[in-house]
């Protein structure tokens, strides 16, 4: 499904034109995962000498306004994450109709073709979640809690659901207040205290893994901790053995590749992936390979 008819003009004056790409995601500002997506996109922009404008809003109505705004701003391409495809359908289709190339990242793999996007980069929350579930199953987990730091967030809910699908056993969601680490830690402690059978804590952000580790310690529980996403401290904990593993969705890749795809479209008319989605991950970080990643995590790029 190629919709690249509008790109001819783009290729025509490659030499002089300063391209501008909009990256519009559903991530909350300051969220470590989306911060890395942003870093990747901006790095790509720097590398290629193009302008990258990042914006985000978790509310699909507002996100669709951002897309409309970018189209009105006549950008040369849009990278968009589609956590709630229905909410963005009209805007994405409008962008495509206006001749703006669109690449979807992170989520929306089922719909990108219908909406006329060039390709999809990343993997759904579901794929990452299922991978975690499988790995935990292999590790013998039977009773897990999945810590959700933002109530009602579509992506987080999907991760937990996917973990439950493949892990077997019991997986229960636990809502915490993500802006208060003290409360996160206390809530996980409470849960571990009241249900001593819990053998695994899955957190959905590197930050919360740290809180979970201290909660496990405080409650005297034997539960192991696994987490989505990385940070320097997470890797150190993996090295120390207090965190079992982290699944790295390689968000940096999603941002970087998204912009790369648009850039190739602009200068060369390429449709990378040939209509098929491209997976950005997942990669597992365990005690074995932690050392190699530490440097990058410290840079804030993994």
């Amino acid at each position, binding site marked *: 499904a190629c919709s690249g008819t509008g790109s001819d003009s783009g290729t025509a004056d490659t030499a002089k034109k300063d391209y501008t790409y909009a990256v519009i995601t559903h991530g909350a500002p300051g969220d470590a995962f989306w911060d890395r997506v942003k870093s990747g996109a901006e790095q790509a922009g720097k590398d290629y000498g193009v302008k990258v404008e990042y*914006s985000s809003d*978790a509310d699909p109505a507002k996100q669709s306004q951002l897309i409309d*705004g970018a189209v009105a701003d006549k950008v040369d391409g849009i990278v968009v994450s589609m956590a709630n495809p*229905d909410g963005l359908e009209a805007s994405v289709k409008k962008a495509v109709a206006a001749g703006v190339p669109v690449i979807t990242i992170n989520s929306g793999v089922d719909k990108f073709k219908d909406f006329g996007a060039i390709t999809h980069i990343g993997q759904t929350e579901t794929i990452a979640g299922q991978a975690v579930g499988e790995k935990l199953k292999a590790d013998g987990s039977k009773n897990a809690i999945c810590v959700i730091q*933002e*109530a*009602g967030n*579509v992506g987080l809910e999907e991760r937990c659901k996917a973990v439950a699908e493949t892990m077997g056993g019991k997986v229960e969601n636990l809502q915490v207040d993500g802006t208060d680490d003290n409360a996160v830690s206390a809530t996980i402690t409470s849960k571990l205290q009241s249900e001593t059978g819990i053998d695994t804590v899955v957190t959905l952000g590197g930050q919360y893994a740290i809180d979970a580790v201290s909660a496990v310690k405080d409650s005297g529980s034997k539960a192991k901790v696994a987490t989505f996403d990385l940070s320097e401290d997470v890797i150190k904990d993996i090295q120390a053995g207090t965190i079992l593993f982290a699944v790295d969705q390689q968000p940096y890749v999603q941002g970087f590749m998204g912009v790369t795809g648009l850039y190739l479209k602009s200068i060369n008319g390429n449709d990378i992936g040939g209509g098929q989605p491209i997976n950005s991950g997942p990669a597992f970080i365990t005690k074995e390979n932690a050392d190699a990643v530490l440097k990058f995590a410290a840079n804030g790029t993994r």
Partner: protein
Amino acid sequence: MTTATVTDERIARTSTVTKLLKRPEIGALVAAIVIFVFFAATTSVFATAPGASTWLRGASTIGIMAVAVALLMIGGEFDLSAGAMTGFTGLIVGVLTTEYGLNIWAAILVSLALALLVGFINGVLVMKTGLPSFIVTLGTFFVLQGIDLAGTKALIGQVAIQGMSNVPYYDSAKKVFGSAADIGGGLVYASVFWWLAVTAIATWVLLRTRTGNWIFSVGGQQTAARQIGVPVFKTKVGLFMTTAGAGWLVGMLLLFTTSTVQSNTGVGQEFIYIICAVVGGCLMTGGYGSAIGAALGALIYGMVNQGIVYSGWDNNWLKAFLGVMLLGAVLLNEWVRKRAETAR
């Protein structure tokens, strides 16, 4: 006016033009114009039809709620459940139609009825218990938030409504709540017209009806209003129901513009409504404010939000810019209002 006392030696001077400046909205209006001019001058898209279409759309839904919340605040109360209400009503329609196949218009009415019921409960609880509305509606807010999340998950196994556009008669409802008219190359969404209508009606009610008089009085001095014979209970409960009704309207606008609604839709927005009302000149303590001012407050908020994106400033600083601009707008607002008062 038959009562003009132009020749009173105790009044410095007066003029019909400067009399206009007395209106509480004047400050917000000037601030809105300044912000418009600023972004129109510094970005290329802001003042184009497609650009304006975007920020008007963003401001419209917030604006409708801000106007309703302003009425409530003038009446001396808060409604923290207003944000969650927009999600709640949308979810009800979504669940009833996509999951249970109810007629879409019936679902819309059911949703309205439930919204008004929640508003009624809010009002009666506040008036009967004497608790501050801040705390009562906080309770309702949490309950609605819980229902939005758990109820939706339990009923449809997801946290967002999907497939809404395949529901029979979806288009007829979309025409009312979610369509857009192409005006001069920019799409103007239905929500913008609703916003204008709501603002006009609210202004008329406030300034030209008995109810408006009562709203000002119950917010300004509840005991005095009661002593003088104003039906305080009816007025306040009515205000809570109005806010809930506005929440329903915005819920419908959101649902039919984007064809989806999530379980966390509107959560956290309640404070933005209050902010817009205050930017537009409402007092936190009640008894003073204007509907047009609140609408202008929402316009300022919408323009700043979208204008920052157009300016291409680093997204990480978004909030800082927003803060500085809001503060600037309010300061300008206050300054203009004070000048207007001494110069009238």
